Protein backbone atom coordinates (compact mmCIF):
# COMPACT_ATOMS: atom_id res chain seq x y z
CA UNK A 1 0.00 0.00 0.00
CA UNK A 2 0.98 3.63 -0.46
CA UNK A 3 2.00 6.09 2.25
CA UNK A 4 -0.63 6.38 4.97
CA UNK A 5 -2.64 9.63 5.02
CA UNK A 6 -2.98 9.44 8.75
CA UNK A 7 -0.88 7.66 11.25
CA UNK A 8 -1.52 7.28 14.96
CA UNK A 9 1.60 6.66 16.98
CA UNK A 10 1.10 5.30 20.49
CA UNK A 11 -1.63 7.86 21.09
CA UNK A 12 -2.53 8.25 24.74
CA UNK A 13 -4.85 10.41 26.77
CA UNK A 14 -5.09 10.58 30.52
CA UNK A 15 -7.73 12.69 32.21
CA UNK A 16 -7.26 13.28 35.94
CA UNK A 17 -5.02 10.24 36.35
CA UNK A 18 -7.45 7.98 34.56
CA UNK A 19 -6.15 6.56 31.30
CA UNK A 20 -8.87 7.11 28.68
CA UNK A 21 -6.89 6.15 25.60
CA UNK A 22 -4.16 3.63 26.24
CA UNK A 23 -1.87 3.78 23.25
CA UNK A 24 -3.46 3.59 19.82
CA UNK A 25 -1.41 2.63 16.77
CA UNK A 26 -2.92 2.43 13.34
CA UNK A 27 -2.74 3.86 9.85
CA UNK A 28 -5.30 5.04 7.38
CA UNK A 29 -4.73 5.06 3.63
CA UNK A 30 -6.16 7.18 0.89
CA UNK A 31 -9.30 5.90 -0.80
CA UNK A 32 -10.40 3.73 2.06
CA UNK A 33 -13.29 4.07 4.46
CA UNK A 34 -12.12 3.23 7.92
CA UNK A 35 -14.71 2.38 10.53
CA UNK A 36 -13.96 3.26 14.09
CA UNK A 37 -16.19 1.05 16.13
CA UNK A 38 -16.74 0.71 19.82
CA UNK A 39 -19.39 0.86 22.50
CA UNK A 40 -20.38 4.16 24.05
CA UNK A 41 -17.61 5.42 26.27
CA UNK A 42 -14.86 3.41 24.62
CA UNK A 43 -12.94 6.53 23.61
CA UNK A 44 -13.97 7.05 19.99
CA UNK A 45 -14.82 10.71 20.34
CA UNK A 46 -11.80 11.43 22.50
CA UNK A 47 -9.55 9.87 19.86
CA UNK A 48 -11.20 11.86 17.09
CA UNK A 49 -10.88 15.08 19.07
CA UNK A 50 -7.19 14.42 19.49
CA UNK A 51 -6.82 13.76 15.76
CA UNK A 52 -8.12 17.23 14.93
CA UNK A 53 -6.45 19.07 17.80
CA UNK A 54 -9.52 19.81 19.88
CA UNK A 55 -7.96 17.89 22.75
CA UNK A 56 -4.33 17.71 23.70
CA UNK A 57 -2.46 14.40 23.63
CA UNK A 58 -0.95 13.05 26.80
CA UNK A 59 1.54 11.00 24.85
CA UNK A 60 2.20 9.86 21.30
CA UNK A 61 1.27 11.76 18.19
CA UNK A 62 -0.99 11.88 15.16
CA UNK A 63 0.69 12.42 11.80
CA UNK A 64 -1.38 13.74 8.90
CA UNK A 65 0.42 13.59 5.56
CA UNK A 66 3.66 13.62 7.49
CA UNK A 67 2.79 16.67 9.63
CA UNK A 68 2.44 16.29 13.36
CA UNK A 69 -0.84 17.56 14.80
CA UNK A 70 1.07 18.31 17.98
CA UNK A 71 3.89 20.43 16.63
CA UNK A 72 2.74 21.48 13.17
CA UNK A 73 -0.99 21.90 13.74
CA UNK A 74 -1.68 24.27 10.84
CA UNK A 75 -0.07 22.13 8.17
CA UNK A 76 -1.55 18.93 9.54
CA UNK A 77 -5.11 20.18 9.92
CA UNK A 78 -5.08 21.82 6.49
CA UNK A 79 -5.67 18.34 5.03
CA UNK A 80 -8.51 17.45 7.35
CA UNK A 81 -12.20 18.02 6.98
CA UNK A 82 -14.47 16.92 9.74
CA UNK A 83 -17.65 16.79 11.66
CA UNK A 84 -17.25 16.14 15.35
CA UNK A 85 -20.48 14.70 16.69
CA UNK A 86 -23.38 16.77 15.37
CA UNK A 87 -22.91 19.14 12.46
CA UNK A 88 -23.44 22.27 14.50
CA UNK A 89 -23.73 25.15 12.09
CA UNK A 90 -24.93 28.66 12.96
CA UNK A 91 -28.72 28.35 12.94
CA UNK A 92 -29.38 32.07 12.45
CA UNK A 93 -27.44 32.24 9.18
CA UNK A 94 -28.26 30.76 5.82
CA UNK A 95 -26.52 27.61 4.66
CA UNK A 96 -24.63 29.70 2.15
CA UNK A 97 -23.36 32.16 4.76
CA UNK A 98 -22.25 29.27 6.92
CA UNK A 99 -20.14 27.95 4.07
CA UNK A 100 -18.76 31.42 3.32
CA UNK A 101 -17.83 31.64 6.97
CA UNK A 102 -15.73 28.48 6.85
CA UNK A 103 -14.33 29.28 3.42
CA UNK A 104 -12.81 32.48 4.79
CA UNK A 105 -10.81 30.45 7.28
CA UNK A 106 -8.75 28.67 4.67
CA UNK A 107 -7.12 30.67 1.89
CA UNK A 108 -7.91 29.82 -1.71
CA UNK A 109 -11.55 28.75 -1.59
CA UNK A 110 -13.45 30.47 -4.37
CA UNK A 111 -17.19 31.11 -4.65
CA UNK A 112 -17.18 28.53 -7.44
CA UNK A 113 -15.80 25.93 -5.12
CA UNK A 114 -18.55 26.66 -2.59
CA UNK A 115 -21.15 26.25 -5.31
CA UNK A 116 -19.55 23.02 -6.43
CA UNK A 117 -19.69 21.59 -2.93
CA UNK A 118 -23.31 22.68 -2.52
CA UNK A 119 -24.13 20.80 -5.72
CA UNK A 120 -22.19 17.78 -4.56
CA UNK A 121 -24.34 17.41 -1.44
CA UNK A 122 -27.51 18.37 -3.30
CA UNK A 123 -28.49 21.46 -1.30
CA UNK A 124 -28.82 23.94 -4.20
CA UNK A 125 -32.48 24.65 -3.61
CA UNK A 126 -32.29 25.34 0.10
CA UNK A 127 -28.86 26.91 0.45
CA UNK A 128 -30.32 30.42 0.85
CA UNK A 129 -32.55 29.31 3.72
CA UNK A 130 -31.63 29.73 7.33
CA UNK A 131 -30.08 26.65 8.89
CA UNK A 132 -32.69 26.79 11.66
CA UNK A 133 -35.23 25.75 9.04
CA UNK A 134 -33.21 22.72 7.91
CA UNK A 135 -34.07 19.15 8.75
CA UNK A 136 -31.44 17.06 10.48
CA UNK A 137 -30.59 15.38 7.20
CA UNK A 138 -30.01 18.72 5.51
CA UNK A 139 -27.84 19.86 8.36
CA UNK A 140 -25.82 16.71 8.04
CA UNK A 141 -25.35 17.44 4.34
CA UNK A 142 -24.32 20.99 5.08
CA UNK A 143 -21.90 19.59 7.61
CA UNK A 144 -20.33 17.41 4.95
CA UNK A 145 -20.24 20.35 2.53
CA UNK A 146 -18.38 22.37 5.13
CA UNK A 147 -15.89 19.56 5.62
CA UNK A 148 -15.24 19.20 1.89
CA UNK A 149 -14.70 22.90 1.07
CA UNK A 150 -10.92 22.76 1.04
CA UNK A 151 -10.53 19.43 -0.75
CA UNK A 152 -9.27 17.52 2.28
CA UNK A 153 -7.24 14.35 1.92
CA UNK A 154 -8.88 12.93 4.98
CA UNK A 155 -12.44 13.25 6.12
CA UNK A 156 -13.31 12.56 9.74
CA UNK A 157 -16.95 11.94 10.49
CA UNK A 158 -17.94 11.30 14.07
CA UNK A 159 -21.29 9.49 14.17
CA UNK A 160 -22.36 10.80 10.76
CA UNK A 161 -25.66 8.95 10.74
CA UNK A 162 -26.73 9.92 14.23
CA UNK A 163 -30.40 10.78 14.24
CA UNK A 164 -30.93 10.29 10.53
CA UNK A 165 -33.82 8.35 9.05
CA UNK A 166 -33.07 5.25 6.94
CA UNK A 167 -33.10 7.10 3.63
CA UNK A 168 -30.78 9.76 5.07
CA UNK A 169 -28.42 7.09 6.29
CA UNK A 170 -28.37 5.51 2.86
CA UNK A 171 -27.64 8.81 1.22
CA UNK A 172 -24.73 9.59 3.52
CA UNK A 173 -23.41 6.11 2.94
CA UNK A 174 -23.38 6.55 -0.80
CA UNK A 175 -21.66 9.96 -0.50
CA UNK A 176 -18.97 8.49 1.61
CA UNK A 177 -18.38 5.57 -0.70
CA UNK A 178 -18.28 7.88 -3.69
CA UNK A 179 -15.83 10.27 -2.08
CA UNK A 180 -13.46 7.47 -1.26
CA UNK A 181 -13.74 5.82 -4.65
CA UNK A 182 -13.76 8.86 -6.93
CA UNK A 183 -11.71 11.45 -5.09
CA UNK A 184 -9.39 9.12 -3.24
CA UNK A 185 -10.30 10.67 0.08
CA UNK A 186 -9.56 8.68 3.18
CA UNK A 187 -12.63 8.61 5.37
CA UNK A 188 -12.78 7.83 9.05
CA UNK A 189 -16.24 7.06 10.31
CA UNK A 190 -17.00 6.41 13.93
CA UNK A 191 -20.09 4.64 15.10
CA UNK A 192 -21.43 2.19 17.57
CA UNK A 193 -23.89 0.75 15.09
CA UNK A 194 -22.41 -2.33 13.58
CA UNK A 195 -24.64 -3.06 10.63
CA UNK A 196 -24.02 0.45 9.38
CA UNK A 197 -20.27 -0.01 9.53
CA UNK A 198 -20.46 -3.30 7.69
CA UNK A 199 -22.12 -1.59 4.74
CA UNK A 200 -19.96 1.51 4.68
CA UNK A 201 -16.42 0.55 5.54
CA UNK A 202 -13.47 -1.23 4.01
CA UNK A 203 -11.71 -1.75 7.28
CA UNK A 204 -12.94 -1.64 10.83
CA UNK A 205 -10.96 -0.90 13.93
CA UNK A 206 -12.63 -1.95 17.15
CA UNK A 207 -11.85 0.04 20.25
CA UNK A 208 -12.67 -1.01 23.77
CA UNK A 209 -11.82 0.88 26.94
CA UNK A 210 -9.29 2.98 25.10
CA UNK A 211 -7.49 0.10 23.46
CA UNK A 212 -7.63 -1.14 19.92
CA UNK A 213 -8.74 -4.77 20.20
CA UNK A 214 -8.90 -5.62 16.53
CA UNK A 215 -8.47 -4.23 13.04
CA UNK A 216 -9.81 -6.17 10.11
CA UNK A 217 -11.11 -5.80 6.62
CA UNK A 218 -14.87 -6.16 6.35
CA UNK A 219 -14.53 -8.60 3.47
CA UNK A 220 -12.41 -10.97 5.56
CA UNK A 221 -14.77 -10.86 8.47
CA UNK A 222 -17.71 -11.87 6.34
CA UNK A 223 -15.90 -14.70 4.68
CA UNK A 224 -14.09 -16.02 7.69
CA UNK A 225 -16.91 -18.01 9.05
CA UNK A 226 -19.54 -19.81 7.05
CA UNK A 227 -21.35 -20.93 10.12
CA UNK A 228 -24.83 -19.44 10.00
CA UNK A 229 -27.50 -18.99 12.62
CA UNK A 230 -30.78 -20.17 11.14
CA UNK A 231 -34.33 -19.75 12.45
CA UNK A 232 -36.88 -22.12 10.96
CA UNK A 233 -40.64 -22.03 11.20
CA UNK A 234 -42.18 -25.41 10.35
CA UNK A 235 -45.09 -27.74 11.08
CA UNK A 236 -45.42 -30.15 12.67
CA UNK A 237 -42.75 -28.79 14.89
CA UNK A 238 -41.94 -31.92 16.87
CA UNK A 239 -41.26 -33.89 13.74
CA UNK A 240 -39.08 -31.17 12.31
CA UNK A 241 -37.20 -30.97 15.60
CA UNK A 242 -36.42 -34.68 15.46
CA UNK A 243 -35.27 -34.57 11.85
CA UNK A 244 -32.98 -31.65 12.53
CA UNK A 245 -31.58 -33.25 15.64
CA UNK A 246 -30.68 -36.35 13.69
CA UNK A 247 -29.06 -34.35 10.93
CA UNK A 248 -27.18 -31.87 13.13
CA UNK A 249 -26.42 -34.08 16.08
CA UNK A 250 -28.35 -32.28 18.77
CA UNK A 251 -27.58 -28.58 18.46
CA UNK A 252 -31.18 -27.55 17.89
CA UNK A 253 -33.08 -25.36 20.32
CA UNK A 254 -36.64 -24.21 20.38
CA UNK A 255 -37.48 -20.51 20.61
CA UNK A 256 -41.17 -19.59 20.48
CA UNK A 257 -42.62 -20.89 17.26
CA UNK A 258 -39.18 -21.27 15.68
CA UNK A 259 -36.40 -23.77 15.75
CA UNK A 260 -32.92 -22.33 16.05
CA UNK A 261 -29.75 -24.01 14.93
CA UNK A 262 -26.27 -23.35 13.65
CA UNK A 263 -25.21 -24.73 10.32
CA UNK A 264 -22.70 -24.44 7.49
CA UNK A 265 -24.04 -22.25 4.71
CA UNK A 266 -23.66 -24.97 2.08
CA UNK A 267 -25.69 -27.41 4.15
CA UNK A 268 -28.84 -25.28 4.25
CA UNK A 269 -30.48 -26.51 1.00
CA UNK A 270 -29.71 -30.05 2.01
CA UNK A 271 -31.53 -29.73 5.29
CA UNK A 272 -34.56 -28.11 3.70
CA UNK A 273 -34.79 -30.90 1.19
CA UNK A 274 -34.73 -33.49 3.97
CA UNK A 275 -37.54 -31.72 5.79
CA UNK A 276 -39.66 -31.50 2.69
CA UNK A 277 -39.17 -35.19 2.01
CA UNK A 278 -40.70 -35.85 5.43
CA UNK A 279 -43.78 -33.85 4.45
CA UNK A 280 -43.04 -31.11 6.89
CA UNK A 281 -44.50 -27.73 5.96
CA UNK A 282 -41.92 -24.94 6.00
CA UNK A 283 -43.26 -21.43 6.55
CA UNK A 284 -40.02 -19.51 6.81
CA UNK A 285 -36.27 -19.89 6.96
CA UNK A 286 -34.30 -16.93 8.30
CA UNK A 287 -30.54 -16.72 8.19
CA UNK A 288 -29.04 -14.30 10.65
CA UNK A 289 -26.22 -12.35 9.03
CA UNK A 290 -24.80 -11.63 12.42
CA UNK A 291 -21.29 -12.91 12.09
CA UNK A 292 -19.66 -9.50 12.53
CA UNK A 293 -21.95 -8.67 15.37
CA UNK A 294 -21.05 -11.87 17.17
CA UNK A 295 -17.45 -11.16 16.63
CA UNK A 296 -17.91 -7.64 17.88
CA UNK A 297 -19.68 -8.78 21.01
CA UNK A 298 -17.07 -11.46 21.56
CA UNK A 299 -14.38 -8.84 21.36
CA UNK A 300 -15.88 -6.18 23.53
CA UNK A 301 -17.97 -8.26 25.86
CA UNK A 302 -21.24 -6.85 27.05
CA UNK A 303 -21.76 -3.88 29.33
CA UNK A 304 -18.10 -3.41 29.99
CA UNK A 305 -17.62 0.27 30.53
CA UNK A 306 -14.83 0.59 33.02
Amino acid at each position, binding site marked *: MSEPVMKLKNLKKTISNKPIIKGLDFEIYSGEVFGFLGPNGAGKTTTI*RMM*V*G*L*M*SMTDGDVMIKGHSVKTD*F*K*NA*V*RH*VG*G*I*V*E*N*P*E*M*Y*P*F*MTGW*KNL*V*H*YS*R*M*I*PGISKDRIQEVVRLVGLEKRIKDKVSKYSLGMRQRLGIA*QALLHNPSILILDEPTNGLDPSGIREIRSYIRRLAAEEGVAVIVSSHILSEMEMMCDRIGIIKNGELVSIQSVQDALQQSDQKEVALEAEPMDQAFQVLQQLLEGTVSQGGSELLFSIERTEIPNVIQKLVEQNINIYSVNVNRSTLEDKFLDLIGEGTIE
Partner: protein
Amino acid sequence: MSNFIQLVKNEQMKTYSQIATWVMYIVLAVFIIGFGVFMKVDQTIMDDGQTTDGNWKQELQAENEQLRQQAKEQEFVASMNEKQIAMNEYRIENSVEPGGYDVWNFVQDNRTNISIISLLTIIVAAGMIANEFKWGSIKLLLIRPISRTKILASKYVSVLVFAMTMLLFLYVLSFLTGSVLFGFENFMEPYLYWKGEDIQQAPIFQFTLAQYLLSSVNLVMMATFAFMISAIFRNSSLAIGVAIFLMMAGNSIVGFFSDKEWAKFILFANTNLNQFFTGTPIISDLTLSFSVSVLMVYLVLFLGLSWFFFSKRDITNA
Protein backbone atom coordinates in the same frame (compact mmCIF):
# COMPACT_ATOMS: atom_id res chain seq x y z
CA MET B 1 -2.97 39.79 7.98
CA SER B 2 -5.64 39.55 5.28
CA ASN B 3 -6.44 36.26 6.88
CA PHE B 4 -7.04 38.03 10.18
CA ILE B 5 -9.36 40.57 8.57
CA GLN B 6 -11.35 37.67 7.13
CA LEU B 7 -11.74 36.28 10.63
CA VAL B 8 -12.96 39.62 11.97
CA LYS B 9 -15.37 39.81 9.04
CA ASN B 10 -16.66 36.39 10.04
CA GLU B 11 -17.28 37.51 13.60
CA GLN B 12 -19.04 40.65 12.41
CA MET B 13 -21.19 38.58 10.06
CA LYS B 14 -22.21 36.31 12.91
CA THR B 15 -22.96 39.25 15.20
CA TYR B 16 -25.10 41.05 12.66
CA SER B 17 -26.89 37.90 11.54
CA GLN B 18 -28.52 37.68 14.95
CA ILE B 19 -31.77 39.51 15.49
CA ALA B 20 -30.71 40.37 19.04
CA THR B 21 -28.02 42.68 17.65
CA TRP B 22 -30.54 44.69 15.69
CA VAL B 23 -32.80 44.89 18.71
CA MET B 24 -29.85 46.47 20.52
CA TYR B 25 -29.59 49.19 17.89
CA ILE B 26 -33.33 49.81 18.06
CA VAL B 27 -33.20 50.10 21.86
CA LEU B 28 -30.38 52.61 21.59
CA ALA B 29 -32.23 54.60 18.94
CA VAL B 30 -35.35 54.69 21.12
CA PHE B 31 -33.30 56.03 24.01
CA ILE B 32 -31.71 58.76 21.89
CA ILE B 33 -34.84 59.93 20.12
CA GLY B 34 -36.98 59.58 23.25
CA PHE B 35 -34.49 61.66 25.19
CA GLY B 36 -34.55 64.29 22.43
CA VAL B 37 -38.32 64.53 22.45
CA PHE B 38 -38.33 64.75 26.23
CA MET B 39 -35.79 67.59 26.18
CA LYS B 40 -37.73 69.41 23.49
CA VAL B 41 -40.99 69.27 25.42
CA ASP B 42 -39.21 70.24 28.62
CA GLN B 43 -37.56 73.19 26.90
CA THR B 44 -40.79 74.44 25.35
CA ILE B 45 -42.42 74.52 28.77
CA MET B 46 -39.44 76.27 30.39
CA ASP B 47 -39.18 78.85 27.62
CA ASP B 48 -42.45 80.53 28.61
CA GLY B 49 -42.09 84.21 29.45
CA GLN B 50 -38.35 84.44 28.81
CA THR B 51 -37.12 87.33 26.73
CA THR B 52 -33.96 87.66 24.78
CA ASP B 53 -33.20 91.31 24.14
CA GLY B 54 -29.62 90.76 22.99
CA ASN B 55 -27.87 92.32 25.96
CA TRP B 56 -26.56 89.11 27.44
CA LYS B 57 -23.78 90.70 29.49
CA GLN B 58 -26.25 92.65 31.56
CA GLU B 59 -28.41 89.58 31.98
CA LEU B 60 -25.47 87.60 33.30
CA GLN B 61 -24.57 90.37 35.72
CA ALA B 62 -28.14 90.48 36.97
CA GLU B 63 -28.04 86.70 37.40
CA ASN B 64 -24.80 86.98 39.38
CA GLU B 65 -26.36 89.54 41.72
CA GLN B 66 -29.25 87.20 42.29
CA LEU B 67 -26.92 84.26 42.95
CA ARG B 68 -24.85 86.24 45.46
CA GLN B 69 -28.00 87.26 47.26
CA GLN B 70 -29.18 83.65 47.37
CA ALA B 71 -25.81 82.47 48.66
CA LYS B 72 -26.02 84.85 51.62
CA GLU B 73 -29.46 83.60 52.56
CA GLN B 74 -28.83 79.91 52.09
CA GLU B 75 -25.39 78.66 53.15
CA PHE B 76 -25.58 75.30 51.40
CA VAL B 77 -25.89 76.65 47.86
CA ALA B 78 -22.97 79.02 48.34
CA SER B 79 -20.23 76.91 46.72
CA MET B 80 -22.44 75.90 43.83
CA ASN B 81 -23.40 79.46 43.14
CA GLU B 82 -19.79 80.57 43.37
CA LYS B 83 -18.93 78.36 40.44
CA GLN B 84 -21.81 79.65 38.39
CA ILE B 85 -20.82 83.23 39.22
CA ALA B 86 -17.21 82.59 38.20
CA MET B 87 -18.39 81.03 34.97
CA ASN B 88 -20.59 84.01 34.18
CA GLU B 89 -17.77 86.44 34.94
CA TYR B 90 -15.48 84.50 32.66
CA ARG B 91 -18.05 84.83 29.90
CA ILE B 92 -18.33 88.58 30.42
CA GLU B 93 -14.56 89.11 30.53
CA ASN B 94 -13.81 87.00 27.47
CA SER B 95 -16.93 87.88 25.50
CA VAL B 96 -18.17 84.29 25.25
CA GLU B 97 -21.89 84.51 24.66
CA PRO B 98 -23.89 81.69 26.23
CA GLY B 99 -25.66 79.91 23.40
CA GLY B 100 -29.05 78.32 23.78
CA TYR B 101 -29.54 74.58 24.05
CA ASP B 102 -28.52 73.31 20.62
CA VAL B 103 -27.43 70.19 18.83
CA TRP B 104 -24.03 70.09 20.54
CA ASN B 105 -25.51 70.30 23.98
CA PHE B 106 -27.76 67.44 22.99
CA VAL B 107 -24.86 65.34 21.70
CA GLN B 108 -23.03 66.17 24.90
CA ASP B 109 -25.99 65.10 27.06
CA ASN B 110 -26.32 61.85 25.12
CA ARG B 111 -22.99 60.80 26.52
CA THR B 112 -24.98 59.18 29.34
CA ASN B 113 -26.16 56.64 26.77
CA ILE B 114 -22.64 55.24 26.65
CA SER B 115 -23.60 53.25 29.73
CA ILE B 116 -26.34 51.63 27.63
CA ILE B 117 -23.71 50.85 25.01
CA SER B 118 -21.50 49.39 27.74
CA LEU B 119 -24.33 47.11 28.72
CA LEU B 120 -24.96 45.99 25.15
CA THR B 121 -21.26 45.52 24.43
CA ILE B 122 -20.94 43.41 27.56
CA ILE B 123 -23.72 41.19 26.25
CA VAL B 124 -22.00 40.81 22.89
CA ALA B 125 -18.57 40.24 24.45
CA ALA B 126 -19.98 37.69 26.87
CA GLY B 127 -21.46 35.72 24.00
CA MET B 128 -18.40 35.88 21.77
CA ILE B 129 -16.82 32.68 23.04
CA ALA B 130 -19.51 31.22 25.28
CA ASN B 131 -22.04 31.07 22.44
CA GLU B 132 -19.70 29.10 20.22
CA PHE B 133 -19.62 26.51 22.98
CA LYS B 134 -23.38 26.71 23.47
CA TRP B 135 -24.02 26.22 19.76
CA GLY B 136 -21.34 23.53 19.52
CA SER B 137 -19.84 25.39 16.60
CA ILE B 138 -16.57 25.81 18.49
CA LYS B 139 -15.61 22.33 17.29
CA LEU B 140 -15.93 23.33 13.66
CA LEU B 141 -14.22 26.63 14.32
CA LEU B 142 -11.10 25.19 15.90
CA ILE B 143 -10.37 22.44 13.37
CA ARG B 144 -9.18 24.96 10.77
CA PRO B 145 -5.53 25.68 10.06
CA ILE B 146 -5.63 28.77 12.27
CA SER B 147 -4.13 29.03 15.73
CA ARG B 148 -6.47 29.47 18.65
CA THR B 149 -4.62 32.66 19.56
CA LYS B 150 -5.55 34.18 16.24
CA ILE B 151 -9.19 33.16 16.57
CA LEU B 152 -9.33 34.63 20.07
CA ALA B 153 -7.72 37.86 18.85
CA SER B 154 -10.19 38.15 15.98
CA LYS B 155 -13.05 37.75 18.43
CA TYR B 156 -11.70 40.41 20.74
CA VAL B 157 -11.09 42.85 17.90
CA SER B 158 -14.63 42.15 16.75
CA VAL B 159 -15.96 43.18 20.18
CA LEU B 160 -14.04 46.45 19.90
CA VAL B 161 -15.34 47.01 16.38
CA PHE B 162 -18.86 46.44 17.64
CA ALA B 163 -18.40 48.94 20.49
CA MET B 164 -16.97 51.52 18.11
CA THR B 165 -19.81 51.05 15.66
CA MET B 166 -22.30 51.59 18.45
CA LEU B 167 -20.51 54.73 19.66
CA LEU B 168 -20.50 56.09 16.16
CA PHE B 169 -24.19 55.26 15.84
CA LEU B 170 -24.89 57.11 19.09
CA TYR B 171 -22.83 60.13 18.02
CA VAL B 172 -24.35 60.39 14.55
CA LEU B 173 -27.93 59.68 15.58
CA SER B 174 -27.84 62.10 18.49
CA PHE B 175 -26.34 64.70 16.14
CA LEU B 176 -29.13 64.15 13.61
CA THR B 177 -31.87 64.10 16.25
CA GLY B 178 -30.39 67.20 17.87
CA SER B 179 -30.15 69.03 14.55
CA VAL B 180 -33.78 68.37 13.79
CA LEU B 181 -35.10 69.22 17.26
CA PHE B 182 -32.79 71.98 18.47
CA GLY B 183 -31.30 73.43 15.31
CA PHE B 184 -27.78 73.29 14.02
CA GLU B 185 -25.12 75.74 15.06
CA ASN B 186 -21.54 76.01 14.04
CA PHE B 187 -18.85 73.47 14.88
CA MET B 188 -16.62 75.99 16.56
CA GLU B 189 -19.04 77.13 19.23
CA PRO B 190 -16.94 77.40 22.39
CA TYR B 191 -17.67 75.26 25.41
CA LEU B 192 -16.63 76.19 28.95
CA TYR B 193 -15.72 73.64 31.58
CA TRP B 194 -13.91 73.38 34.88
CA LYS B 195 -10.51 71.91 35.16
CA GLY B 196 -9.57 71.82 38.83
CA GLU B 197 -9.82 75.42 39.89
CA ASP B 198 -9.68 76.94 36.43
CA ILE B 199 -12.19 77.52 33.70
CA GLN B 200 -11.16 76.22 30.29
CA GLN B 201 -12.51 76.84 26.84
CA ALA B 202 -12.62 74.51 23.84
CA PRO B 203 -14.61 74.19 20.61
CA ILE B 204 -17.65 72.16 21.57
CA PHE B 205 -17.21 69.79 18.63
CA GLN B 206 -13.78 68.81 19.81
CA PHE B 207 -14.88 68.70 23.42
CA THR B 208 -17.78 66.27 22.82
CA LEU B 209 -15.62 63.98 20.73
CA ALA B 210 -12.97 63.86 23.45
CA GLN B 211 -15.65 63.24 26.06
CA TYR B 212 -17.05 60.35 24.06
CA LEU B 213 -13.65 58.74 23.78
CA LEU B 214 -12.85 59.21 27.44
CA SER B 215 -16.20 57.78 28.46
CA SER B 216 -15.48 54.69 26.39
CA VAL B 217 -12.60 53.63 28.61
CA ASN B 218 -14.91 52.08 31.14
CA LEU B 219 -16.83 50.41 28.33
CA VAL B 220 -13.70 48.79 26.92
CA MET B 221 -12.55 47.59 30.33
CA MET B 222 -15.89 46.03 31.21
CA ALA B 223 -16.30 44.45 27.78
CA THR B 224 -12.82 42.95 28.09
CA PHE B 225 -13.73 41.67 31.52
CA ALA B 226 -16.91 40.04 30.20
CA PHE B 227 -14.87 38.59 27.33
CA MET B 228 -12.46 37.05 29.81
CA ILE B 229 -15.20 35.46 31.93
CA SER B 230 -16.73 34.14 28.73
CA ALA B 231 -13.43 32.58 27.70
CA ILE B 232 -12.73 31.06 31.11
CA PHE B 233 -16.14 29.74 32.09
CA ARG B 234 -17.66 29.35 28.63
CA ASN B 235 -20.92 30.66 30.03
CA SER B 236 -22.40 33.88 28.74
CA SER B 237 -25.00 34.42 31.49
CA LEU B 238 -22.29 34.30 34.11
CA ALA B 239 -20.14 36.72 32.13
CA ILE B 240 -23.01 39.16 31.63
CA GLY B 241 -24.09 38.97 35.26
CA VAL B 242 -20.67 39.49 36.81
CA ALA B 243 -19.65 42.23 34.38
CA ILE B 244 -22.85 44.23 34.79
CA PHE B 245 -22.74 43.84 38.55
CA LEU B 246 -19.19 45.17 38.67
CA MET B 247 -20.03 48.00 36.30
CA MET B 248 -22.90 49.09 38.54
CA ALA B 249 -21.06 48.52 41.79
CA GLY B 250 -17.73 49.95 40.60
CA ASN B 251 -18.04 53.37 42.17
CA SER B 252 -19.41 51.96 45.43
CA ILE B 253 -16.45 49.60 45.63
CA VAL B 254 -14.03 52.49 45.24
CA GLY B 255 -16.00 54.57 47.74
CA PHE B 256 -16.01 51.73 50.26
CA PHE B 257 -12.24 51.26 50.17
CA SER B 258 -11.29 54.86 49.43
CA ASP B 259 -9.43 55.30 52.74
CA LYS B 260 -7.21 52.29 52.08
CA GLU B 261 -3.69 52.68 50.76
CA TRP B 262 -4.30 50.36 47.80
CA ALA B 263 -7.60 51.91 46.73
CA LYS B 264 -5.93 53.66 43.83
CA PHE B 265 -5.08 50.28 42.30
CA ILE B 266 -8.74 49.30 42.04
CA LEU B 267 -9.81 49.19 38.42
CA PHE B 268 -12.82 51.45 38.93
CA ALA B 269 -10.82 54.20 40.57
CA ASN B 270 -9.01 54.58 37.26
CA THR B 271 -11.63 54.04 34.60
CA ASN B 272 -12.92 57.60 34.72
CA LEU B 273 -10.15 59.37 32.81
CA ASN B 274 -12.47 62.34 32.45
CA GLN B 275 -11.56 63.37 35.96
CA PHE B 276 -8.13 64.48 34.78
CA PHE B 277 -9.49 66.78 32.12
CA THR B 278 -12.57 68.22 33.77
CA GLY B 279 -13.29 68.38 37.47
CA THR B 280 -11.08 66.92 40.21
CA PRO B 281 -10.04 63.28 40.77
CA ILE B 282 -11.83 61.30 43.52
CA ILE B 283 -8.60 60.02 45.00
CA SER B 284 -6.29 63.01 45.15
CA ASP B 285 -2.92 61.40 44.35
CA LEU B 286 -4.11 59.87 41.05
CA THR B 287 -2.50 61.13 37.88
CA LEU B 288 -3.35 60.48 34.26
CA SER B 289 -0.22 58.47 33.56
CA PHE B 290 -0.76 56.39 36.69
CA SER B 291 -4.35 55.61 35.74
CA VAL B 292 -3.42 54.72 32.19
CA SER B 293 -0.71 52.37 33.47
CA VAL B 294 -3.12 50.68 35.87
CA LEU B 295 -5.66 50.28 33.06
CA MET B 296 -3.05 48.74 30.79
CA VAL B 297 -2.06 46.25 33.48
CA TYR B 298 -5.68 45.21 33.95
CA LEU B 299 -6.20 44.94 30.20
CA VAL B 300 -3.14 42.73 29.78
CA LEU B 301 -4.26 40.62 32.73
CA PHE B 302 -7.77 40.13 31.33
CA LEU B 303 -6.54 39.28 27.86
CA GLY B 304 -3.76 37.07 29.19
CA LEU B 305 -6.19 34.99 31.23
CA SER B 306 -8.59 34.77 28.29
CA TRP B 307 -5.78 33.56 26.08
CA PHE B 308 -4.50 31.05 28.62
CA PHE B 309 -7.86 29.40 29.14
CA PHE B 310 -8.96 29.56 25.53
CA SER B 311 -5.83 28.19 23.93
CA LYS B 312 -4.73 25.64 26.49
CA ARG B 313 -7.86 23.83 27.49
CA ASP B 314 -9.37 20.79 25.83
CA ILE B 315 -12.67 21.14 24.05
CA THR B 316 -14.48 18.35 25.85
CA ASN B 317 -18.15 19.07 26.14
CA ALA B 318 -20.20 21.11 23.67
